[in-house]
């Protein structure tokens, strides 16, 4: 297992390199000039040129890239063009943990709601509960989440005054964003769990369990669920990526100061180092979570050969 973990860790290296290269190139293809943006609306040519030189934007691209990767390995992601502060420091402040928190709460919510709904649906196929849950799931899947977020604010915060509109900190602040973020994932997980359960229920070993005299309940929770979870677990990992992306929107709507907003702000400001850094961190986070999911997956599903 340990060997597997180490090997699996090594496998992430080319992915990481690919990610840095992709981000780096993308950011450098962007029209516009960071120096100009920094200098402001009323700045003159000389000031801009000065700024460009300071930022090292006049070096060849590949040099900039190698410098970047070299530094990144040492945990130095450069300095923000906009604020001139260390990107690493800027990212790994509170805001990093806020986004991680948000994404995990969102994932947790999605998993809990999704699993419960999926299991209920699968065990009561075609019942009213099943149909309505699946309709809900469909809605959850079909709703643009910024819209959902704004609707939630107006309903729960402005009209009912039950919850705060925006911000982060107390548990009340977390409810609406988590719902906004988790809804899509919950819908997907619910549908996935349902179909996975229904598939598993038709398998031979379930019949074996019944033939042993195992009760319905135990068959569902001990025999079926465990196996049904296998595809669901992988989806959860991928969902996490979706949630990180969704955080961009959720954080914007709920004015949460997380990585998502940092990304948007940086993209707008053409703050290359910051965009590179944040996207890299998101990708790393995603890769790590999927790495964990992979390990979990192997724990649940012993069939996969560890070698």
């Amino acid at each position: 297992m340990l060997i597997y973990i180490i090997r699996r860790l090594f496998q992430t290296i080319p992915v990481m390199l690919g990610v840095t290269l992709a981000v780096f190139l993308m950011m450098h293809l962007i029209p516009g000039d960071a120096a100009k943006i920094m200098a402001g609306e009323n700045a003159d040519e000389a000031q801009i040129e000065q700024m460009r030189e300071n930022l090292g934007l006049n070096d060849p691209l590949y040099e900039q890239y190698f410098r970047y990767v070299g530094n990144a390995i040492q945990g130095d992601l450069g300095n923000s063009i906009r604020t001139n502060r260390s990107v690493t420091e800027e990212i790994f402040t509170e805001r990093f943990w806020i986004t991680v928190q948000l994404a995990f709460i969102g994932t947790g919510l999605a998993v809990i709601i999704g699993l419960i709904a999926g299991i209920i649906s699968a065990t009561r196929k075609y019942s009213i509960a099943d149909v309505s849950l699946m309709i809900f799931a469909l809605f959850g899947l079909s709703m643009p989440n910024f819209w959902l977020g704004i609707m939630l604010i107006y309903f729960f915060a402005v009209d009912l005054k039950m919850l705060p509109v925006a911000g982060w900190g107390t548990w009340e602040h977390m409810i609406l964003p988590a719902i906004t973020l988790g809804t899509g994932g919950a819908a997907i997980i619910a549908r996935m769990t349902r179909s996975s359960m229904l598939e598993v229920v038709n398998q031979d070993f379930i019949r074996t369990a019944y033939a042993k005299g195992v009760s319905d309940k135990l068959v569902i929770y001990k025999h079926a669920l465990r196996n049904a979870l296998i595809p669901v677990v992988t989806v959860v990992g991928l969902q996490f990526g979706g949630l990180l992306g969704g955080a961009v929107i959720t954080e914007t709507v709920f004015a949460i100061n997380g990585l998502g907003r940092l990304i948007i702000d940086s993209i707008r400001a053409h703050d290359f180092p910051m965009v590179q850094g944040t996207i890299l961190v998101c990708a790393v986070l995603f890769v790590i979570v999927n790495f964990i999911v992979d390990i979990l997956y192997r724990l649940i599903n012993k069939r996969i050969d560890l070698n």
Partner: protein
Amino acid sequence: MTEKILEVKDLRTSFFTDEGEVKAVDGVDFSIEKGKTVGIVGESGSGKSITSLSILRLLQEPVGKVVGGEILFKGENLLDKSKKDMMKIRGNNISMVFQEPMTSLNPTLTCGEQIAESVRIHQKLNRKDAWAKAVEMLRLVGIPSPEKRAKQYPFELSGGMRQRVMIAIALACNPELLIADEPTTALDVTIQAQILDLMKKLQEELGTSLMLITHDLGVVAEMCDKVAVMYCGKIVEYADVKTIFTNPKHPYTIGLLNSVPKHDRDYEGDLSVIEGSVPSPFNLPKGCRFAPRCPHARAICQSELPNLETLEDGDQVRCWIHTEKWEKEEVGAHE
């Protein structure tokens, strides 16, 4: 006459599909005596598995449903039992071994757990005792170093070992009746020999009655006391094993026996065959189901379904040839 552990009377099971009703089992009668082995043979799709699933009431309702008949287990009709009672019977009084050792075990539970579960449910043993029992069962079915194997997952075992685990599960509670649905079909011959041997030994030791479903006539010849030959959801011949192999009466049984290439005998020329193929379950012939393929078929065969008649030697055959009506029939309706 010894005690009948299981008596199946006019069992009818249907599947209600989009295309219509499939009468998978259509009036099956047979019985199993204590300690004896009954073999059920027949073409693929003839209803062997469905018969066994009907006995344990493991059909997927509401698509598949027992629509008639009686299943008397020690005199009590299983079809009248409540769900809870059935749960107590399954795995305890009657257990089952399935065909596919690869898919019939839960991939996410250790082998030991899967055996112990059965014991825990029926014998109310605690975790530790159940585990001990599981290890003991593994030893009984001839798995080397059972303590280690019990902790392994099915994927870590070979096909033959998995089938042994299946048998261990089935026999863990010392059932009175074991139903084995093609327990060796997926296995290699040398492994099959191991498994059959094991089953025979255990059956003798434990006195279990056995219902053995197979399409391998060799297995039947080796294992069974009585044989039921099924065709299209019906038993066409039911006799003791010697009669079936030496003096088969039904044209299908005869055809079947003749079309098997023997490994221990030489012969020249072509195999004798049964022409045609099994009718579609949606388009069953009106009369005898075998009539379209039967070399002897006459008019009555096409129009009327024969009954399962008991002949003087105790052989039960579903064929007009063995009835009085036959002599009166015109020849040449077929072709």
